[in-house]
């Protein structure tokens, strides 16, 4: 053992060897993850600069891939975003953890700066060529194009074939990956599912797309001109911190007094709460001392006193919602819809993290499906579709725990309901706890599952109203048929019992048609009212 050398590896080396941890565990997933990372980056960039995003996505099969049972797939994503400066391009695409968003506590799609560099690595490993990028900012006269590879040993981007050119747009970025992969269009992990889901939670997005096998490009227009504003992050809440984090955070304040550090370095710490901390063991003599003079050992005691003190819950102002109105409009872009129900919960604090749950349930006319099949469940975390490992996710758990039968859907015990429905559940929070680095499954805590469950139950109540209205229309139709069927039999029966003459029968039949005619008119009117209500609901949304 003594002669073995201890070596250090770069972050890039680690991820290059463990790409399965960040969504590149199979050729099929590699294509989807590459597309996802590219689209997430484009949308985040547009939102940061308040630009209405217009994206072009093109996925082509170029030929056989380098690996066994793979194809060479081209994934090209072009946006009208702010563009990136040439000097930033190798860092963004070729360096791990080089991100403008890492640990900022905002509800942006990307968080760590791993995904897109991992896509470049995958392209480089499977096709010996990183990512091809075109970029132009509004300050640049000419656009720049280059190939970026990852220097795996040094965790740095390498620029190749850099050129400038005239581009017919003021600003934007276009990236193209050519990778070994396999195309899966449909199903939970399919590309179409991803694009539809992205369209749903991004009402402000105009998307043009072409996936290998389609006859032509498809264009989906935005339904709102409002670009969502991702709220700025807030100061950390003391109860969300671990001891080590707390000490590091404190040291950054250096000579500041403890009192100032507590009230300026955290959210939800008021003079009143500092008083309470003192009752819970915080020494009075520390209050006006500088952080440095207190020292680590004493800071541990300060930390303990804070943890023992009741504080107001963290602010929910940092969360972002799509909103019921926008969601209603957006869902209509996915196909012809029978009816739908959308719901946005008020932001709530779960496990000391602000979170907001939004739900959309729709029944599509053009997707009849099998009545016995499970509904299509679309899961989102910070507006990014989650398409794998459905079973272990908090969102699935919550959906399975609801008794959908009481809202008119069929459901076996502890499973998803069945029928031709699409159920989209979106979770937004600056601190979503994923089960893995590839961000496919949301870790489930009882509090979070309960919050999602409540949202689903509210949406279910709305859905039940639709279903009841539908049922009512059906009943009225059935009743109309009854009139035609049973009315004359009634008269014939009475005439037979009374041995009444034919003329009485004719007269009674006339009378009956007058009475039931009035009912028929009434029933038709009621049907019309029911129809109008349904139409009104749909037009409200569109």
């Amino acid at each position, binding site marked *: 053992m003594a002669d073995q050398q201890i070596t250090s590896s770069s972050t890039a080396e680690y991820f290059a060897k463990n790409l399965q941890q960040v969504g590149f565990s199979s050729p099929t997933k590699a294509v989807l993850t590459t597309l996802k990372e590219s689209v997430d980056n484009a949308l985040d960039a547009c939102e940061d600069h308040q630009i209405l995003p217009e994206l072009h996505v093109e996925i082509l099969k170029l030929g056989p891939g380098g690996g066994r049972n793979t194809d060479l797939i081209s994934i090209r994503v072009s946006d009208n975003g702010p563009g990136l400066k040439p000097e930033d391009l190798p860092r963004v695409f070729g360096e791990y953890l080089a991100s403008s968003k890492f640990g900022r506590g905002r509800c942006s799609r990307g968080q760590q700066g791993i995904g897109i560099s991992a896509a470049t690595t995958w392209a480089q490993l499977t096709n010996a060529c990183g990512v091809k990028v075109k970029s132009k900012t509004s300050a640049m006269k000419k656009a720049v194009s280059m190939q970026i590879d990852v220097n795996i040993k040094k965790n740095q981007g390498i620029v190749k074939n850099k050129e400038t050119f005239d581009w017919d747009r003021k600003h934007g970025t276009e990236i193209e990956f050519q990778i070994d992969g396999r195309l899966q269009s449909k199903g939970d992990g399919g590309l179409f599912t991803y694009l539809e889901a992205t369209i749903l939670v991004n009402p402000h997005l105009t998307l043009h797309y072409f996936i290998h096998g389609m006859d032509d490009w498809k264009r989906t227009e935005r339904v709102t001109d409002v670009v969502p504003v991702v709220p700025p992050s807030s100061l950390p809440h003391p109860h969300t911190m671990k001891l080590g984090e707390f000490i590091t955070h404190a040291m950054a304040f250096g000579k500041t007094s403890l009192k100032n550090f507590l009230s300026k370095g955290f959210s939800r710490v008021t003079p009143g709460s500092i008083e309470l901390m003192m009752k819970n063991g915080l020494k009075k003599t520390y209050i006006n001392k500088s952080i440095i003079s207190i020292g680590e050992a004493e800071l541990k005691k300060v930390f303990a006193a804070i943890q023992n003190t009741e504080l107001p819950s963290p602010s929910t102002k940092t969360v972002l919602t799509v909103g019921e109105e926008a969601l209603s409009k957006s869902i209509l872009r996915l196909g012809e819809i029978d009816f739908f129900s959308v719901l946005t919960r008020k932001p709530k604090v779960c496990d000391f993290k602000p979170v907001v749950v939004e739900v959309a349930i729709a029944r599509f006319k053009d997707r009849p499906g099998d009545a016995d099949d499970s509904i299509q469940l679309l899961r989102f975390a910070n507006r990014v579709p989650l398409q794998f490992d459905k079973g272990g996710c908090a969102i699935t758990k919550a959906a399975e725990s609801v008794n959908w039968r009481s809202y008119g859907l069929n459901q076996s015990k502890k499973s998803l309901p069945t029928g031709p429905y699409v159920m989209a559940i979106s979770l937004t929070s600056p601190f979503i706890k994923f089960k893995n680095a590839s961000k496919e499954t949301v870790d489930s805590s009882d509090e979070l599952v309960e919050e999602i469950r409540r949202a689903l139950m509210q949406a279910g109540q709305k859905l039940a109203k639709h279903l009841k209205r539908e049922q009512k229309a059906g009943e009225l139709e059935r009743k109309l048929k009854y*009139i035609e069927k049973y009315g004359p*039999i009634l008269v014939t*029966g009475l005439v037979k019992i009374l041995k009444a003459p034919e003329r009485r029968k004719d007269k009674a039949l006339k009378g009956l048609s007058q009475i039931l005619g009035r009912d028929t008119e009434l029933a038709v009117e009621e049907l019309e009212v029911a129809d109008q209500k349904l139409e009104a609901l749909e037009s409200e949304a569109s």
Partner: protein
Amino acid sequence: MSSVLQSKKKVMQKAKAICEAMLSDLEKAQRPVLTAVKCSLDNSIYNAKVGYFTPGDKMVRSELNVSSVQKLSRTIFVLDILLNNLEIDAVNTKREIYYMTKGLTINGEHKSLDFEEQSECDSIIDYIMDLLEIYREEFNCFAGDRGGQTYSQQLVVTEFLNDGEKAVVDLSTLGTMPYQPKNKPQALKLKVKKKVDFCLVVESEGTANTLVTMGFTKRHNCILMGAMGVPTNGVRGWCKLIQDQLKVPIYFYGDLDAYTLQNIYRTLKAGSAASLIRNKDFSAPEVRFLGLLPEDIKKYNLPYRVVKENNPKEARALKKAKDALKNDPFFQDKKNKKLTQILHFLIKNKIRCEQQALMSVDPKDPLKPEKIIIEKIKSGSWV
């Protein structure tokens, strides 16, 4: 004219009057409305002086509209079958009526009236009876329910037949075989050869049969009847007939449990909410509860069973007993205070004691149960 023929005429007149009213309403383009007594506990009135459940003023109103047109058509359809039966003196069970409707709907013009299940047809038959306020038996529609299995050395029954003939049955000639009357009390006339001291109705027909075989009816001038569990209309009408025509005290002997008190004894004595319009002729308010009584357990050291609350059937019976105390006008009436006390006792102690427990008092003496029953009657140990 015999009472049977009078009844037939009355039923036909009532039915036709309703049909006439409906047809003339239709001719005038007015909606016919049918009203029937609401037969439910919330419309049941118990007056101890009357002695049985009578209907309150709640009515079920069926006006002809899109929702009721099917029900009314079916009502007239089944009424026609019943009237036809009555006219030709044909007799049927409910199930037979159901199959008659099937025969008329399979290929005929009334196909749309087809009853998928017998229960649908049954509920229309019941509705017609409520509507006309008559008994199903008056329409010659009988359930399989017969009167209680009856034994007596003194009783003679005369039955007036539809064809005007009479049948006379002397029960003393039947040996240990029971006489079981048809459920048509209005067609029966009772006579006794010798004064009868009492009538004993035993919950279990098996126990009644044991008593007879051991010579109960030979030793006592009485009528002995096996009620066969929850009393059918036949048993109820038969008891009422004995009460009214013979004017002898009637005692009921059965298990000491909530089910017997509520479902068997109360129905025999005061009728039921489901048959509000029948209770007048199908309940015997003077019937007494001979036991078993709570005090009998102690007095005769009777073995009893503990009600198992984890047994769904027993738990349900217990819950029903609690509900009865709350909602059943019979148990709320002061006159039945002692019966209510027994229910409270049973709910509180969660026990039940079966009628056959008397066999445990002296297993070597097969006549012991008879002796105890007679002792209880003589000493007034009943409610």
